[in-house]
């Protein structure tokens, strides 16, 4: 049963539930300005009502919303800072493209922290508490002149190594990268040994007994058929 279409302005309060990310983003920005550590922001951000994938998928009730009352000032400041930093990039097309590529490369290497398990560039949940924060932080840091490597390091410092989409190839994590190829090499060696052994056996031995047996049964069958 379809009702007539309604104007878009009512979207924000669908069925009495928050359907926009406006408050979320604002909350996050204020916290960003006030606290500095992204990890802490997300910890406090978890208090906000986010219908992120994790909650949706597991049928868990989302936690209630709470907002810092003195947040708006910080938000405005943070927004201004972002705009100022981003301003020179708009002027030059190629530079803008380069920044976009750098942003893409960095976010491809990170995982969204809302528990959804998606890559940062792919997290499809708009009310996601983590992805907009991380994306904004990456843009900000890249614009501030940090290298891609430095941004990644800053992320690891904030969230721990689990933020990286692939483990860094160092220390114990090296085994993650090396083991498949060690297994492949081992298998290859084994296959070669087996092939050589089979090949050597052929040189040494008489005809393949299995094949002889098959030929014999085939022959007998054919003979029988002829007799019939």
């Amino acid at each position, binding site marked *: *049963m*379809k*009702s007539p279409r309604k104007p*878009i302005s009512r979207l924000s309060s669908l069925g009495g539930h928050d359907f926009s990310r406006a408050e979320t983003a604002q909350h996050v920005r204020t916290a960003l300005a006030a606290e500095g550590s992204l990890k802490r922001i997300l910890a406090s951000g978890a208090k906000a009502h986010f219908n992120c994938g994790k909650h949706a998928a597991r*049928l868990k009730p989302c936690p209630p919303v709470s907002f810092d009352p003195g947040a708006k000032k910080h938000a405005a400041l943070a927004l201004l800072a972002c705009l100022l930093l981003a301003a020179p990039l708009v002027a030059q097309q190629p530079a803008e493209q380069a920044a976009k590529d750098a942003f893409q490369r960095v976010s491809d290497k990170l995982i969204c922290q809302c528990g959804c398990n998606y890559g940062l560039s792919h997290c*499809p949940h708009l009310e996601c508490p983590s992805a907009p924060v991380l994306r904004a932080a990456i843009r900000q840091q890249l614009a501030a002149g940090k290298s891609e490597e430095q941004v990644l390091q800053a992320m690891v410092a904030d969230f721990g190594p689990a*933020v990286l989409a*692939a483990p860094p190839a160092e220390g114990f994590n090296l085994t993650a990268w090396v*083991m498949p190829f060690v297994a492949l090499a081992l298998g290859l060696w084994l296959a070669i040994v087996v092939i050589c052994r089979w090949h050597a056996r052929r040189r040494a031995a008489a005809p393949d007994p299995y094949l002889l047996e098959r030929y014999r049964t085939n022959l007998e069958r054919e003979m029988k058929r002829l007799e019939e």
Partner: protein
Amino acid sequence: MDALGSYSLLLAFCFCLYSILAALIGHWKQKPLLQQSAERAVLAACGLVVVATFCLAVLLLRDDFRLAYIASHSNRALPVYFKFAALWSGQEGSLLWWSCLMSLFAATAVAVNRRTHAHLMPYAVVALMAVLLFFLILNNFAVNPFRLLTADGPRGPEVFSPPDGGGLNPLLQHPAMVIHPPMLYLGFVGFSVPFAFALSALITRSKGEQWIRITRHWTMIAWCFLTIGVLLGGRWAYAVLGWGGYWGWDPVENASLLPWLTGTAFLHSVMMQEKRGMMKVWNMGLIFATFLLCIFGTFLTRSGVLSSVHAFAQSAIGPYFAVFLSLLLFVCGFVLLRRLDFLKSENQLDSLASRESSFLFNNLILLASCFAVLWGTLFPLISEAVQGVKISVGAPYFNKIQVPIGLFLLFLTGVGPLFAWRRTSMESLRRNFTRPLIFGALVAIVSFIFGARNFYALVAIFLAFFVIGTITLEFFRGARVIRQKEERNWAGAVIELTRRNTRRYGGYVIHFGVALLFIGFVGSAFTIHEQAEVLPGDQVTVRNYRFVVQSLDQQETDNHIASQARIDVFRNDKFLATLTPERRFYKASGQPTTEVAIWPHLSKPLEILQHPHADIYLVFAGMAEDNQRAVLQIYINPLVLWVWVGGAVMVFGTGIALVPSRPPQPGRPTRKRKPTKERDEVAA
């Protein structure tokens, strides 16, 4: 109805237990009647589980919310087909569904083989029923789907029925979800039959390759279902999750891929045993591994040891699975070691360049790929156990490792079938390879000229078209020989050729599907992704595509409220289609989802013909911060269509291979022409 279901499950458990005991005792004491009653108990258990499943389905359709399972997985406004699909969308239901399919497979396998292969039956029955018993234990005692909702009343706990249910998870309300789980489960369950007969053949020291002949069709059918299941899972993820891709190397996706990889290796290596009596131990190991990985996959999906975007049902059944898996592992390992002498085969290899060695490499690569997937999937757990640090292993890791392995596999797909058994001459290699190699290289060069500048993508294109070239050449040569002998047109000759050796040419068709699949994979290297915040009337330009936002509306049905964007898509200023990505809010569960708009639509051939090279994939991600503009995710996904086409071709090929071959029919008008040398090749 719920009592009937509950008691059926309990009785099925008893029959299952009885059939195991009767089969064992009947075999040890040589009592044929007892063995026969064990076989009949299998049929009875099957009937009872089917009755229980039927009961749950009826209760779901009748909206009986007294049952905890139904109250939390369905609601009154849910469309009927999703009510039915709710049968397998939660923990309890899906495990009952597993038992149902498993019992049907077991009953069919027993009914078909009990007269012809009586000596294998006792242990096959024990193995099949032991697996079913495990799932029935879960159904009855751990996660019973017929559990009633109770509340404390004045006279103790009372059954109560809420007015409406909590609704089906909206992510699961998609047509692919109605068929994806049954397909995947059919694949998982299907491997239990070859597993049971292999185990039985090993224990009873059954002679020869009988178990392989018995289970060949079972294996192929199970593999086919698994292929369909994995691909449908990808299609579901693509159409529902809204992240723009179909395969994210998520633990649950990996869990379904693992048995597919070992199963594929097994399908190839059994040919070595059939034709040459080689690799007996290896084949046993492979089928055991495949079945263990099927159980392991279910364990990963159901237990929640790894976080996943697909984990829709989790509870504390992990320990049950852990115990069952270790038991299975122990039994398989023990029997295999005890029977090593029996499996000894006098293998010989005439030449290094032969089908045998190519199969060995095929197995090696498939297993290496399987190990890499398993290792990557489990590495977060390993890392946490060893260094106490939680890390993530995501798509970048798997892509880096799997892409080269996959390409090598594609290379073998092209090369392997062209090697003859025992020995291949350089001359035949040259004859078979030159033209396909040139063909592949030409297509790769053309792609490079048209702007494909990705190394792996170019290699994949080269190899995929090389494979297509080799397969086409094989069909062409065979058909030419038939045409020389008989009056047939080309199509008739190709059909006749295929009918004479369905396994071989069905296999080629499957390989052709694999090549198409890889062509589809290549597209992911060239995906374009843009995000835009738009108002009605706005335009967004991405490369040569233009998106014009017509309107942003809101619509309501009984089940959900949807905000919808209507967007006209133009390519080079030519109108293509109007797409309507939605963002839905489901009333019963209170959850929002995205309803992706994908064009061309798979069910509309005209659209596909109009635009076969790329999918336009629009996501209405929600409202921007000002609450006026809509956030739009725009993806241009090249070549994705070919993934589904490739999958369909693979399934078609399996269908061909399942048809028995037919020897050449005498009495066809023949041409009076001298038979050429190539005639012998076809006969071989």
